[in-house]
């Protein structure tokens, strides 16, 4: 090579180097912009609305949509990052993308025409090619072993520019995603914290107000009811959480409130164990469970109906039969009593509660069949006793031998006396309570001992009524009935009650006082005697201790 040629070569080299630098800068800027566009297209496509059923992969969750910002947003963000970087790489540097033909030609004479275009596939590849593929396909004949260095420089500059542009675009994408992640994470944390705070608020409010839920049919304590959407889908955990803080969207697209304050109590609630409907107010006011126990035919059902009847007459409290089941059975019982008959015997089995709203209380009355108490093996599985907040022990006075001995046949026939020994019934009851509660000391609950059939008691000659000459004062009347029981030879019952229960109250009632409490004369003469209001035992139980 001569000096002149070398000089020209050097000049060409310098010129091409300058041109290459310009091309490098242009290629870098172009690839950066192309990368941003690719990133934006990929992100817009990824975040476009699409069916999301498949995202609800948690089989144990309720049939509701997940709250996007309570977790899936961050998972989506991670996937978006992968998609975005892949899109940028694919658009700028990838050598293996572009659809049908990914390989570079190995023989230019075979695939390329002199202007550098493929004679078959290149026109179709243009829009999907990465920039680098475009460079290598379009300019690859410059990159051969005999290509002079000055001619190689522009291609090299463009290639390096693409790499620089890719790095810049990647840095921009990374910074953008990082900023978005910080904001999204803050929002997700805020949503999660808000959910937990309202979950605690809801749970704490129920606990503070003493509201616990138990099923009146299967007698199981419930953590929370199963709420049923109007579409029929059951939501077992309708609380603030990952499926919504204040509301959740059921699969039927209906919005359900997760908080009682937002109207959750208006939804249909069911027991999670047996599926029985729960009263509408189950989570709104404290619930009290009052088993009414006694021997067969002692008058438990009649007492319960009369007591509820009296409660319904109370003008000071809002009273309502809290569910359809109670209303139907109560109407049947009232029909029997008003017709002068007796309510049918309670069927043997675990009693289904009569649920009554009485002012700020929701009362569950359990009218247990007398046979249950007379058969310990039945009583042992009577879980309703475990729920009891107070007990009503029904004593039929005509089951007491001393009373029975004084009554004539007509009175006994009309009174339909129970044959169950009150002491035997009490022993089974105490044993069952001890098994369920495991208490070795006195059971911390009130027991109202109710002597029924007081109207018939007034027809027994030579039998003093405990309230004769007594004022209508609770403690005096309680003492009088207790002493009366002792006089009839049942000190054992009185002592057992005193030993096993924290408080015991004694009452005498008759079903004739359902409408109003009236005084009645004794068959032996003397002043008329007014029995206790049939609702008095219930009120006394509600007034004490836990109740």
């Amino acid at each position, binding site marked *: 090579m001569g000096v002149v040629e070398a000089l020209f070569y050097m000049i060409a080299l310098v010129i091409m180097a300058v041109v290459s630098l310009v091309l490098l800068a242009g290629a870098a800027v172009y690839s950066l912009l192309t990368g941003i566009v690719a990133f934006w297209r990929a*992100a817009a496509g990824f*975040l476009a*609305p699409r069916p*999301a059923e498949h995202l609800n992969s948690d089989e144990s969750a309720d049939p509701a949509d997940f*709250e996007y*910002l309570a977790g899936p947003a961050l998972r989506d963000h991670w996937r978006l990052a992968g998609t975005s970087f892949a899109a940028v790489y694919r658009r700028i540097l990838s050598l293996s993308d572009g659809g049908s033909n990914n390989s570079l030609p190995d023989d230019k004479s075979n695939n390329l025409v002199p202007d550098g275009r493929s004679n078959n596939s290149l026109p179709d590849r243009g829009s999907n090619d990465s920039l680098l593929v475009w460079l290598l396909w379009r300019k690859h004949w410059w990159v051969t072993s005999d290509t002079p260095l000055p001619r190689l420089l522009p291609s090299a500059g463009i290639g390096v520019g693409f790499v620089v542009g890719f790095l810049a675009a990647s840095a*921009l994408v990374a*910074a953008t995603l990082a900023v*978005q992640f910080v*904001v999204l994470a803050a929002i997700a944390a805020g949503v999660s914290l808000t959910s937990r705070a309202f979950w605690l608020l809801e749970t704490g409010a129920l606990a503070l107000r003493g509201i616990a839920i138990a099923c009146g049919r299967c007698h199981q304590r419930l953590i929370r009811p199963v709420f049923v959407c109007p579409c029929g889908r059951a939501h077992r955990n309708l609380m603030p959480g990952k499926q919504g803080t204040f509301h959740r969207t059921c699969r039927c697209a209906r919005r359900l409130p997760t908080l009682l304050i937002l109207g959750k109590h208006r939804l249909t609630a069911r027991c999670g164990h047996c599926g029985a409907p729960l009263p509408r107010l189950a989570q709104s006011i404290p619930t009290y469970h009052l088993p009414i126990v006694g021997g067969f035919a002692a008058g438990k059902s009649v007492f319960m109906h009369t007591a509820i009847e009296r409660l319904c007459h109370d003008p000071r409290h809002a009273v309502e039969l809290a569910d359809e089941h109670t209303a139907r059975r109560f109407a049947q019982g009232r029909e029997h009593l008003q017709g002068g008959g007796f309510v049918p015997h309670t069927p043997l089995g675990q009693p289904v509660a009569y649920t009554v709203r009485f002012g700020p209380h929701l009362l569950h009355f359990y009218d247990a069949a007398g046979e249950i108490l007379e058969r310990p093996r039945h009583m042992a599985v009577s879980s309703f006793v475990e729920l009891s907040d107070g007990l009503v022990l029904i004593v039929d006075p005509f089951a007491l031998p001393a009373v029975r001995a004084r009554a004539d046949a007509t009175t006994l026939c009309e009174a339909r006396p129970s044959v169950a020994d009150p002491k035997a019934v009490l022993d089974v009851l105490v044993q069952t309570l001890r098994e369920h509660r495991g208490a070795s000391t006195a059971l911390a609950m009130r027991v109202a001992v109710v002597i029924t059939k007081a109207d018939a008691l007034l027809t027994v000659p030579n039998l003093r009524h405990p309230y004769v000459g007594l004022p209508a004062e609770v403690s005096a009347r309680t003492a009088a009935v207790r002493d009366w029981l002792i006089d009839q030879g049942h000190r054992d019952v009185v002592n057992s009650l005193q030993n096993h229960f924290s408080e015991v109250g004694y009452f005498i009632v008759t079903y004739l006082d359902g409408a109003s409490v009236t005084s009645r004369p004794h068959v032996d003469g003397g002043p008329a005697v007014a029995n206790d209001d049939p609702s008095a035992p219930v009120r006394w139980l509600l007034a004490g201790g836990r109740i």
Partner: protein
Amino acid sequence: LNRSFDRGRKLARLLLILSMLVVLTVTILAVASLF
């Protein structure tokens, strides 16, 4: 469509635009401060 996801993704897209604007602004300001 899951409405929560739909709304959430719209918010994510908005955040993405804002994030990109923030990054571009900061980048431009940083580059401009060099000169």
